[in-house]
């Protein structure tokens, strides 16, 4: 009878230790609270991954990976890692973010965290949908970044550019989105 009691006490102690370890481990782990996911993510959105704790100010993460590539910069703000694309992302495209070696201010750690999402359709104006346009000695194209590219192929380049800009102005395209390259010079 005494032996049975000892066994029961020991079993209770073991269970208590295990539960304590699990609770302790959960309390010490760093969790992802929110991230871009699902489909329909705006191509112009800031990609934000929020964690359960404030991140380490000196070494918040080891690597941030975005697939497919996009120009932009990463910022750490409190408990979040944000990627701000320099230009818009490609519409209707599957993206993946991987962050490695994320560390909180209190020393909690995530080795690797992967997040998949799909961008929604780009909202194109009727003019943008009509691109590309081939004019007399120039072309107007929409780039994936959202820029509108004017390529000028022949002289007089000033006249060609003016004609292209008139079309863009009529189409409601803002000047800051327009890039112009005159290719009438020689190549080697």
């Amino acid at each position, binding site marked *: 009878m005494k032996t049975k009691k000892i066994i029961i006490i020991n079993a209770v102690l073991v269970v208590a230790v295990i539960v304590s370890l699990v609770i302790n481990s959960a309390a010490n782990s760093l969790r992802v609270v929110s991230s871009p996911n699902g489909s329909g993510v705006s191509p112009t959105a800031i990609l934000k991954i929020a964690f359960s704790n404030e991140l380490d100010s000196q070494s918040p993460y080891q690597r941030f990976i975005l697939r497919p590539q996009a120009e932009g910069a990463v910022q750490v703000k409190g408990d979040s890692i944000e990627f701000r694309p320099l230009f818009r992302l490609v519409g209707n495209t599957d993206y993946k973010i991987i962050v490695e070696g994320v560390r909180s201010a209190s020393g909690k750690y995530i080795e690797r965290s992967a997040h998949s999402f799909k961008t929604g359709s780009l909202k194109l104006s009727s003019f943008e949908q009509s691109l590309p346009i*081939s004019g007399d000695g120039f*072309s107007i194209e929409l780039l994936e970044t959202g820029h509108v590219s004017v390529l000028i192929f022949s002289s007089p380049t000033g006249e060609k550019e003016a004609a292209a800009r008139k079309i863009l102005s009529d189409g409601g395209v803002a000047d800051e989105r327009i890039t112009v390259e005159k290719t009438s010079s020689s190549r080697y």
Partner: protein
Amino acid sequence: MSHIKQFLLGALSLFGLLIFSAQPALARTLSPGELRKMGVYFVTPTNFSTSVEGSADGSGACYELALPKANDLAAFANAIDTYLTANAPAGSPFQGLGADFVQGAVRRDINPMFVIGNLRVESNYGTAGGTDPATLQYKLQENFNAFGRTAGSSQSKFTHNGRDWYVYPSWKESINSIEPGRGDTPDQPALMRAVYLDQGKLTIGQYIGKYAPGTDGNDESAYGRSMKDTISKIVALAGDALSCTDAETVITPTPRTGPR
């Protein structure tokens, strides 16, 4: 009567022999030079076959001038054709030449997507000639030069406003040439290899900085965006046909100094 029969039979045999011996001459493909003398310009003679298959062990980077790692060259060529169908004017003479872009570039260890990026910006994929025979663009198109390439003194050329411009035998051979006797750079990939890659121009920025420098009136940034856009679209279409080590953005934080 039998004499007449024998004569007719002999004449018929002789005629047959004549036709048979004339076959090679009749079947001979006219050279681009002969075609031009006849006033035929806007054609793409196919004087050698093109085929691509298997893989190519390239550098791994897709946004650089060196040949990328291609797992399936035929699928890569198909992706280029799909890109051209969707993005180049229907009248572009480069439509359907995906295998030539790949074959010509692989021969020189060059990224074919750079060649297409150049075509886009330089001549709207070979369609920017216009209708005025007096203009440079018309003459470039007439001579299958969709890249605005100038010519050296010993190279095949035409002259416009005191400058010499390169003459290609055909559109196809401007991107994929096996013609001997046209020097070391008979096509655009060969030129890219000798004048750019072999001289350390690897990235889009380095390449454009020499090919279309700002000092020559170019907007290098605009040119670069178009090149990158072209590559990005083809990479997406190619899928597993390419293994791009640079198809992702990798950012490592700059370590901060000072007290925590």
